[in-house]
């Protein structure tokens, strides 16, 4: 059973209110949500029905030995769940687990001190290059969960927001690239006015004001890769914000500043997460790049789970697999366990990251062949 309490418990009062209002607004515009919707409108799906589609773990062979897990410091409880669950099938397997952080993970692999490098976000190209410099071939990367929907530090999905008074319902990733990126990055003309996105009347000649995370942050890097197609240039119009700090040293996520600025600017557009939203901003539905039917999907838990919402993120594990060789032994069995209904139930029970759906599980399992 998926733990529905997690997302609510992590949602402070203002954002819970917003989540409700945002979901109600999506109800008007999104034709993409097909599954069960919670009575509070948060879009959290019926967990049992979603995970029922996933393959149950069945050992291919009995394995023993030591597996060295290394990396993402945000998954100690989840890792314990996976390890304990796996050891019920394979009591002869011992784990040596060290989770210093995602940025250290890949070096653990090419430095020979880890079998599995867990990275709690999409990898950077420099991490793959580093591994390949040492071994001569790239590591094998396997997705092990989607990012969270709206849990701090857990690779949350990004939402695109406008001011609450802005009537726009949706935008495509291609349009966002022309708003947030450099015009030469794309073949299209830059989008600078709301009229170019189809708004009429007084909105049509209003200039779009662009807000976002500082280009050096992980959020902006993800947005850059997914929306701007990897091109490094940002619009000259982007007003960007970096993380701040409270007097006690606690980090204030830049999303707070991004959405505060948007809340005061009816002409603005921004990317951030529901976590930092107040009542004066509203998330819009998005059309994925190359969508055949031009379908817009709202940022809901379910659309993140089903990977229909385009700004859904994921977490990975990397292993050292020489080209042409199959993954064998305890590592293979452990990865098969993670990529099963059992493994995804642990993700759901942990309550932060979103489990992989059946289609994605199939894609990832094939990589082990």
């Amino acid at each position, binding site marked *: 059973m998926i733990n529905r309490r997690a997302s609510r418990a992590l949602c402070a009062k203002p954002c819970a209110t917003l989540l409700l209002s945002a979901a109600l607004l999506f109800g008007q515009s999104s034709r993409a949500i097909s599954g069960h919707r919670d009575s509070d409108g948060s879009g959290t799906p019926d967990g049992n029905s979603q995970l029922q589609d996933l393959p149950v773990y069945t050992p291919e062979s009995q394995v023993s030995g030591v597996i060295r897990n290394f990396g993402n*410091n945000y998954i100690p409880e989840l890792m314990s769940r996976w390890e304990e669950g796996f050891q019920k099938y394979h009591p002869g397997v011992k784990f040596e687990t060290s989770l*210093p*952080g995602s*940025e*250290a*993970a*890949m*070096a*653990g692999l*090419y*430095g*020979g*001190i880890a079998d599995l490098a867990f990275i709690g976000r999409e990898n*950077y*190209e*420099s*991490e793959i*290059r*580093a*591994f390949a*410099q*040492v071994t001569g071939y790239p590591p094998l990367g396997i997705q092990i969960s989607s990012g969270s929907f709206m849990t701090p530090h857990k690779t949350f999905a990004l939402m695109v927001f406008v001011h609450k008074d802005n009537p726009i319902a949706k935008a495509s990733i291609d349009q966002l690239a022309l708003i947030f990126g*450099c*015009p*030469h990055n794309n073949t299209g003309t830059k989008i600078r006015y709301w009229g170019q996105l189809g708004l009429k009347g007084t909105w049509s000649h209003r200039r779009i004001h662009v807000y976002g995370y*500082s*280009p*050096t942050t992980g959020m902006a890097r993800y947005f850059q890769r997914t929306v701007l197609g990897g091109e*490094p*240039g*940002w*619009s*000259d*119009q*982007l*007003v*960007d914000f*970096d993380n701040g700090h409270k007097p006690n040293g606690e980090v204030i996520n830049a999303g707070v500043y991004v959405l505060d600025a948007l809340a005061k600017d009816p002409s603005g557009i921004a990317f951030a997460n529901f976590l930092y939203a107040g009542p004066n901003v509203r998330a819009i539905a998005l059309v994925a790049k190359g969508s055949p039917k031009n379908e817009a999907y709202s940022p809901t838990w379910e659309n993140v789970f089903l990977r229909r919402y385009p700004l859904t993120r994921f977490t990975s594990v990397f292993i050292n697999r020489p080209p042409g060789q199959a993954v064998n032994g305890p590592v293979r069995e452990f990865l098969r366990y993670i990529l099963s209904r059992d493994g995804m139930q642990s993700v759901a029970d942990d309550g932060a990251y979103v489990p992989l759906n059946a289609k994605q599980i199939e894609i990832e399992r094939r990589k082990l062949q």
Partner: protein
Amino acid sequence: MLAPPMLLGVVFGQSAEPERQKSVHVVLRIWGANTKTASGNPLADVVTSLEEAYKQHNPEARFENHFHGNDSAMGGLYAGVADVVFMTRKPSYIELDGYQQMIQGQTPLQIPVMRGSPLVSSPIPPIVLVVKATNPLTTVTLTNLRAVFGSDCRDSAALRPWSVLNVSGSLARQPIHLVGFDLNSEEAMIFADTVLGNSPRWTCNYHPEQGSSAAARRIVDDVKHDPNALGITTLDRVTSEVKVLGLVGKSGRAIYPTAENLASGTYPLFRTVLAITRRPSKKYQDGTTANFLSFLASPQGQEVVASDDRFLPVPHAATADAVKAQR
């Protein structure tokens, strides 16, 4: 001012000058940038020369060299499989995060040990600004470079004309065509770090060429065919059809990338090889590494660097400043 080896001694909490250790029993594992080309491997060559010179004082010393590349160097250090790494760029913030995740509460010690020379054969040639040879511009200030290459929402997003760089005549109203390296390249990162500041945003009018050495050549080609072009490239690819601009800093003088200006650091877009190692702590002491680093920064070590014309020694004051800044 303390000499660099003495300062390093203070940092490492040991005697100042490089000295023959009573017992050097640890093999020093060296990782670093891969500068291998068809004509040689300059960084490996000079590091090997340094190791040989060090062994004259410490005959028991042993080295294992693995010049895999810049991207893997820091990881080798914090994964504990390298003792000293040589990088031709600063560690990225991701690499520093990885280091601090493994070695909590610490930053690595970064010592500049050599600089790239202006010779064509240098693996880290200085970064230069070029215009077509017929362009009347001869110098540019760092402030103007920032205004032209940088992107700030408070500035106009329009193409900047040559008049911004004080060019008059028919060129004055023409837009500047900006061309240079891919923004993820080592060269672009050094330019951004030096010219654009801590949070670099490039103008949308910048046209990046992909690659590194090949890109440098293409940039020169772009500039020689375009009277409106202002390019960022490297000195080794400059031809007579383009002109290298002098850079004007706070002194008000135009500085060119000569050996003297690169060695002194007066020319701002010089490139450095950093020797990076783990900082000693109560739990972690490594006298062998400390002794080797002290040797690198010593006059003897810098003589070895100077004997390889692809590199330039680092002035004592610059090394001392770098060490002091990290104490």
